[in-house]
């Protein structure tokens, strides 16, 4: 009896792994067949040649279709991975991390509220919730122009097409509240018929042509895998432009414009703004005519080693992934460090852990210089304010203020390019070093002015938290938050309702969205 039981047990024991192996071989063979098959051409997919009946029955994707779910019916995998950009749930309050930023941006919206960016899924939500866009009560109130929507939604190219670009760029931000309701999506980068990458915002084409070294007409497919991102991840300003509408009324548009006429380096753009006497705002403390840098990601990337080697944004931020036998590019755009295996290690030989350490150290180096620059510049603002208070003249102050303008512009360029510490560490550290130099140069000049006015030993006030810094510049945060909540409780729901009635709004884009801000309790 014992022998036969043992024999049975042994037979079963060897059959289990063999069965597993067999199942796996069958599965892998099926995968092999899919993978070795000739890939279907996009056009024949639309014609219904592939997957027969089902695809043919789908409605065609309309031009300027801003609801990504409509595209997702044809491209479920890409769409599904795109939806996963919702996983970057947490808010990081950057002002809290370095309160000096509140002082640097005194008198400007960023001193009120500034968070690290979240995934594409949250583009609109965060734009609408930030205290910077204020609390409009109707379509003509609020602090910001329509241009603030420009990089947030595929409804923007649709509106530019329907209304004309200049009309789109005219009026207050709240004007388009009932029209712009879907976050960055398919239509921002793809042609609806061919799925080819396409530029949906003409200001990028104009800027490339104005800069001249890489005209848009010469862009290859590999270039396009960067340029579709560069539509938004680049430095811009709102160029005031007069125009006359169909009824003959004079209008003023604020048009998103890339300042690349002299080149894309930090100095070339600085010179562009200086030549035009452009200022983003006048600093509340130092009365400096300031510049604000906004995420010059593209400009920085092209100076770095990955850019020089012909890589595109999509190579690392949208890696190829596999599902069964199907290969596609992940549309969960985010940090490549979340998937080192499919990004860095494709070309590099180190281990994941070594990579994390290398990148971490790069970030620390940038932070060290960025903090030093911010500290210098914050002190310079206070010292300038003191000099004004003691009766310094505009002539006395001008050289120091020019240093503050340039120094802060460079610091901002270095930190606002987000991944700059990795994309182009040498360039980013160089820029931050010049920012420190300019900041110190301003402080030496200011010290002379202060001495002349009897305050040679003036010490700038200290602050240790975001709240203290905001109190120092007299920001009434309670009022700002109350205005915002009033807007979010009244006008906002109305916007969504009207947009839904017009059939524009894809409700899935806000499903399960939690209210997360730096000011909500």
């Amino acid at each position, binding site marked *: *009896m014992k022998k*036969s039981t043992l024999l049975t047990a042994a037979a079963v024991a060897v059959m289990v792994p063999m069965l597993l192996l067999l199942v796996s071989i069958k599965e892998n063979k099926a995968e092999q067949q899919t993978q070795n098959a000739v890939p279907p051409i996009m056009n024949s997919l639309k014609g219904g040649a592939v997957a027969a009946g089902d695809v043919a029955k789908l409605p065609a994707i309309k031009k300027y279709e801003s609801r990504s779910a409509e595209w997702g019916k044809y491209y479920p995998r890409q769409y599904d991975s795109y939806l996963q950009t919702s996983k970057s749930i947490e808010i990081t309050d950057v002002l809290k991390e370095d309160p000096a930023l509140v002082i640097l941006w005194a008198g400007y919206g960023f001193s009120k509220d500034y968070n690290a960016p979240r995934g594409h899924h949250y583009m609109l939500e965060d734009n609408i919730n930030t205290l910077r866009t204020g609390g409009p009560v109707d379509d003509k109130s609020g602090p910001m122009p329509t241009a603030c929507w420009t990089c947030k939604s595929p409804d923007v190219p649709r509106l530019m097409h329907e209304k004309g670009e200049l009309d789109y760029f005219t009026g207050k931000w709240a004007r388009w509240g009932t029209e712009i309701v879907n976050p960055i999506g398919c239509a921002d980068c793809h042609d609806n018929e061919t799925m080819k990458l396409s530029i949906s915002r003409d200001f990028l084409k104009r800027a490339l042509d104005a800069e001249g070294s890489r005209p848009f007409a010469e862009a290859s497919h590999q270039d396009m895998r960067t340029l579709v991102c560069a539509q938004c991840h680049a430095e811009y300003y709102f160029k005031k432009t007069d125009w006359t509408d169909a009824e003959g009324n004079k209008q003023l548009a604020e048009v998103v414009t890339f300042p690349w006429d002299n080149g894309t380096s930090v100095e070339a753009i600085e010179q562009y703004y200086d030549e035009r006497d452009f200022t983003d705002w006048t600093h509340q403390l130092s009365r400096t005519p300031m510049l604000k840098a906004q995420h010059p990601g593209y400009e920085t990337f092209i100076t770095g080693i990955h850019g020089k080697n012909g890589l595109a944004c999509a190579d690392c931020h949208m890696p190829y992934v596999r599902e069964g036998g199907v290969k596609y590019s992940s549309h969960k755009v985010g940090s490549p460090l979340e998937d080192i295996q499919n990004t860095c290690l494709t070309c590099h030989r180190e281990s994941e852990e070594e990579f994390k350490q290398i990148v971490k150290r790069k970030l620390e180096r940038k932070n060290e210089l960025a903090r030093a620059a911010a500290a210098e510049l914050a002190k310079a603002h206070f010292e300038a304010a003191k000099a004004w208070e003691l009766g310094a003249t505009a002539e006395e102050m001008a050289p120091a203020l020019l240093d503050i303008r340039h120094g802060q512009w460079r610091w901002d360029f270095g930190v606002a390019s987000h991944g700059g510490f990795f994309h182009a560490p040498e360039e980013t550290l160089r820029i931050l070093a010049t920012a420190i130099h300019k900041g110190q140069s301003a402080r030496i000049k200011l010290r002379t002015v202060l001495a002349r006015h009897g305050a040679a030993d003036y010490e700038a006030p200290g602050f240790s938290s975001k709240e203290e810094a905001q109190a120092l510049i007299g920001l009434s945060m309670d009022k700002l938050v109350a205005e915002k909540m009033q807007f979010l409780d009244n006008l906002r729901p109305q916007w969504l309702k009207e947009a839904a009635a017009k059939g524009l709004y894809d409700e899935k884009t806000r499903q399960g969205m939690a209210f997360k801000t730096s000011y909500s309790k």
Partner: protein
Amino acid sequence: MDKKNPLILVAILSVTAAVGLFLWVVQESRALSYLSSDPKVCINCHTMNTSYATWQHSSHRGKASCVDCHLPRDSFINKMIAKSRDGYKHATAMTLRSYGNVLRVSDDAAARIQANCISCHQAAVSQMLDNSALYDRADPTVAMGRRCWDCHRRVPHGTTRSLTATPDNLGVKEL
């Protein structure tokens, strides 16, 4: 005897089933093909597509097949032991899906490959072999203390090595 009968029957049936299953696995996995040295055997599994395609377009194509580099060539027995061990590891990884898109050789395989590099390129590397005794930080897993492909990065599988990202690897479908 009567009482034992059903259990013996079960045992006989199980063993027969196991043998049958074994034969089925041998057939499905094309087990006998692995006795050959033909590179096409390696793309029995599509996981090797990219390695095959890159090798097929490399200068090594005409001179060295997969096994010429990846298996020891000092004796037939060592070759078969290494082949069985690799086969077992690969079958396990495929079954459990425990591999990623970027495949790397193990230290053990690296040592074998390096020995094969040296044996073919003996004349070219003889001086380096002598100098390697002076290396500051030698890699103990390979002969000569430094992996040839740390510098010769493209040899022979190219620099972009990922099952999803290696370019131009569709040529392997003509099996």
